[in-house]
């Protein structure tokens, strides 16, 4: 590989080194020279439409936008002449006059708005042209996001983000000239959109208060908040979170652009559902006295648990845990004789045989052929779905899907097949599509572990082995439980059918650790026979953060911490260990899962 040629620019009299192919802005920023920008975001393709980053090149009569002009070796660039400042001020005056940029009641007022910041930096106390006062609508129909067109500067950061990070291309610009506006789908609203996944990446990208989070609005100015980096525990991807807090409450959740897994992207679960959904939090231990659950102290609750555990022989006691428990709990969990982890259907086999491929996200990014077998990333691992969409649509990879449920990814697939009904000559087509694949990736979920799924998996591997040339596909297991692969590898048995597991030997004591599962573990009760089996057990202890039908039938309820209060590590589907850093102190009397377990064992 030939390394790119080194070039030199002279920017404001300073020698700045760079590489051929870089833009003037990239070289300037690398040398610590600041040029104002509005539509530029380093992780998105440049657009060059806001005209704030204009610079002069000695010898040329024009000004050019630094973000989208390739640097030419030897040129002299001026970034801040009086004439450039006047031009930038004019651009800002036109922006301020074009729509209704009223700071006093805006969510981004006083330090969070990039337009306001540029106005201040350019000393704008008043504009010299009349205001247009157009009547633009405000779309608050979305569940989590809102769009106020009056504040939009048409920078297209949201459009480019939706295309290049989420891959759905829900947002674009419609109409012409002064009638240009951001449009959702073909003229829908966020509430009626067919394609919007509510990932919220557009809100994070918006420089003004045009796109804003309904839950975060007015909870605090971001520039006055504390920030903590942690990891999302809603699924096995483990995206990096950058959480803003103020006075012990969450203000807003952003993706961490330094995360090697997600590079700043999030899905609706990690960005919104963990904190913007109203849930009934359990804040103190509960003991069942006289048929009712009543608040108790930790001492009372732990004593009740220990007493009940004493009454049962080792084989009559069991612990059933959520697959999202962190790594640090494993050693202690293994001290119990009967320990299991409740997982989704077909996930036990995935835990036993699933491949963890290092840097799976990077492999998906660089793939030229992606096969999705028996997995539903759009539903269960949103950021993986985004990665697949962007790799297929922007980097032109082939997509082959084998599954039993429809998903939005189907529309991008070259071959999309219902796993159950595959015909023979079909495999010829599949082999044809994969014959030129140089960087193939095979993502498989729990459904791939069914007899049909395994048969398809074997057929696919055979196709690759039978190829004259080309590498074997990277195999990536995609479970639904956030830390199930790690817990299983640590020796915790994955249990798909809780009923038979409970029924195997009579139990007198059952400790269910639902942790911060959004449903409080209630899905266990959806399985036939589980409820009557639970009712036969002398003492059922539920350790959970949220109230549910499951906590309602427990004898003892122990309040657990939630995602933003947890400390420890999890290991994601790539095999990467990721840190959980507590963002807030535990609310009420909630305690960490491990702390509770150790107290119970004492």
């Amino acid at each position, binding site marked *: 590989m030939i390394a790119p040629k080194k070039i030199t620019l002279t920017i404001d009299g300073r020698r700045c080194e760079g590489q051929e192919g870089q833009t003037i802005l990239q070289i300037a920023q690398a040398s610590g020279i600041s040029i104002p920008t509005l539509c530029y975001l380093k992780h998105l393709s440049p657009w060059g439409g806001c005209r704030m980053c204009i610079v002069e090149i000695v010898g040329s009569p024009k000004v050019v936008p630094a973000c989208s002009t390739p640097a030419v070796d030897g040129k002299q660039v001026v970034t801040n002449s009086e004439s450039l400042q006047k031009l930038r001020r004019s651009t800002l005056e036109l922006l301020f006059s074009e729509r209704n940029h009223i700071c006093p009641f805006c969510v981004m007022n006083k330090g969070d708005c990039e337009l306001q910041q540029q106005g201040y930096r350019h*000393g704008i106390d008043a504009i010299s042209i009349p205001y247009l006062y157009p009547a633009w609508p405000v779309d608050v129909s979305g569940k989590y996001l809102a769009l106020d067109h009056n504040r939009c500067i048409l920078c297209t950061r949201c459009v480019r983000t939706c295309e290049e990070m989420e891959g759905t291309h829900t947002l674009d610009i419609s109409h012409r000239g002064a009638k240009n506006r951001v449009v959702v789908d073909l003229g829908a609203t966020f509430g009626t959109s067919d394609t919007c996944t509510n990932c919220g990446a557009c809100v994070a990208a918006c420089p003004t208060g045009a796109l804003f989070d309904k839950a975060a609005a007015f909870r605090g100015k971001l520039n006055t908040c504390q920030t903590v980096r942690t990891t999302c525990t809603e699924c096995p991807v483990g995206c990096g979170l950058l959480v803003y807090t103020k006075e012990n409450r969450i203000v807003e959740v952003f993706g961490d652009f330094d995360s090697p897994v997600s590079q700043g992207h999030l899905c609706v679960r990690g960005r919104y559902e963990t904190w913007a959904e109203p849930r009934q939090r359990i804040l103190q231990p509960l003991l069942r006295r006289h048929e009712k659950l009543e608040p108790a102290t930790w001492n009372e609750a732990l004593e009740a648990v220990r007493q009940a555990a004493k009454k049962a022989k080792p084989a009559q006691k069991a612990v059933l845990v959520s697959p999202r428990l962190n790594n640090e709990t494993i050693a202690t969990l293994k001290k119990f004789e009967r320990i299991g982890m409740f997982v989704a259907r077909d996930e036990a086999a995935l835990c036993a045989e699933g491949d963890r491929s290092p840097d799976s996200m990077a492999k998906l990014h660089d793939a030229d052929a992606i096969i999705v077998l028996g997995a539903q990333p759009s539903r269960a691992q949103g950021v993986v779905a985004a990665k697949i969409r962007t790799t297929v649509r922007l980097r032109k990879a082939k997509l082959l899907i084998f599954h039993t449920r429809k998903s939005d990814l189907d529309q991008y697939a070259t071959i999309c097949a219902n796993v159950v009904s595959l015909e023979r000559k079909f495999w010829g087509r599949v082999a044809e599509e994969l014959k030129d694949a140089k960087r193939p990736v095979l993502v498989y979920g729990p459904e791939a572990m069914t007899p049909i799924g395994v048969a398809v998996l074997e057929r696919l591997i055979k196709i690759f082995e039978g190829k004259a040339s080309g590498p074997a596909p990277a195999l990536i297991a995609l479970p639904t439980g956030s830390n199930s692969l790690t817990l299983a590898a640590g020796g915790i048995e994955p249990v798909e059918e809780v009923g038979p597991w409970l029924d195997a030997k009579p139990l007198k004591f059952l400790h269910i650790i639902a942790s911060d599962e959004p449903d409080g573990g209630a899905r266990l009760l959806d399985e036939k026979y589980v409820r009557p089996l639970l009712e036969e057990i002398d003492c059922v202890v539920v350790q959970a953060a949220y109230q549910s039908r499951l906590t309602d039938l427990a004898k003892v309820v122990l309040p657990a911490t939630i995602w933003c209060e947890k400390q420890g590590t999890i290991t994601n589907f790539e095999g990467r260990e990721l840190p959980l850093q507590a963002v807030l102190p535990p609310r009420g009397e909630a305690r960490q899962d491990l702390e509770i377990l150790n107290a119970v064992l004492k």
Partner: protein
Amino acid sequence: MSDKPKVKVATVWLGGCSGCHMSFLDLDERLVELVKLVDITASPITDVKEIPNVDMGIVEGAVCNEEQEHVLRTLRARCKVLVALGDCAITGNIPALRNQFKLEDVVARGFVETESTQVGDIPGPPPVPKLLNKVRPIQEFVKVDAHIPGCPPDADTIWYVLTELLAGRMPKWTEKNLSYD
């Protein structure tokens, strides 16, 4: 005490909430220094309504009706330096939100369709001044010599602009003095 004659100042508020005048009063003890240099003649604060010839005129609020336009033009004709105080005077701001709607709809919503009104009647001139079709900032009617942005501008900024103007200089706007915390 200085021998210089005091600078005569008049202030008016048009389509505004009076917050900018309140912010002016937030100068607190600096008002004592200020009145050594200026003579505040007509003003909502002094409650003198007849505007004499003055050196400096300060205007809060946007122009929403014919009476406000008349007052603005009168002050402009009788002063040498006119200062726009606050975002309403400079950009239209909150009063200008009604520009997004038809005037007759705004008036109907305000006087007839209000929740507690039984029989609504739209007041007209006289005595209520006629509303202009669109609310506009003052510089679209008269020449403005200096602006103090903010909603409201904070007292420190008002002090800075007034002292600069009294010293014969135009204020210099930077990121530091434009951002209020």
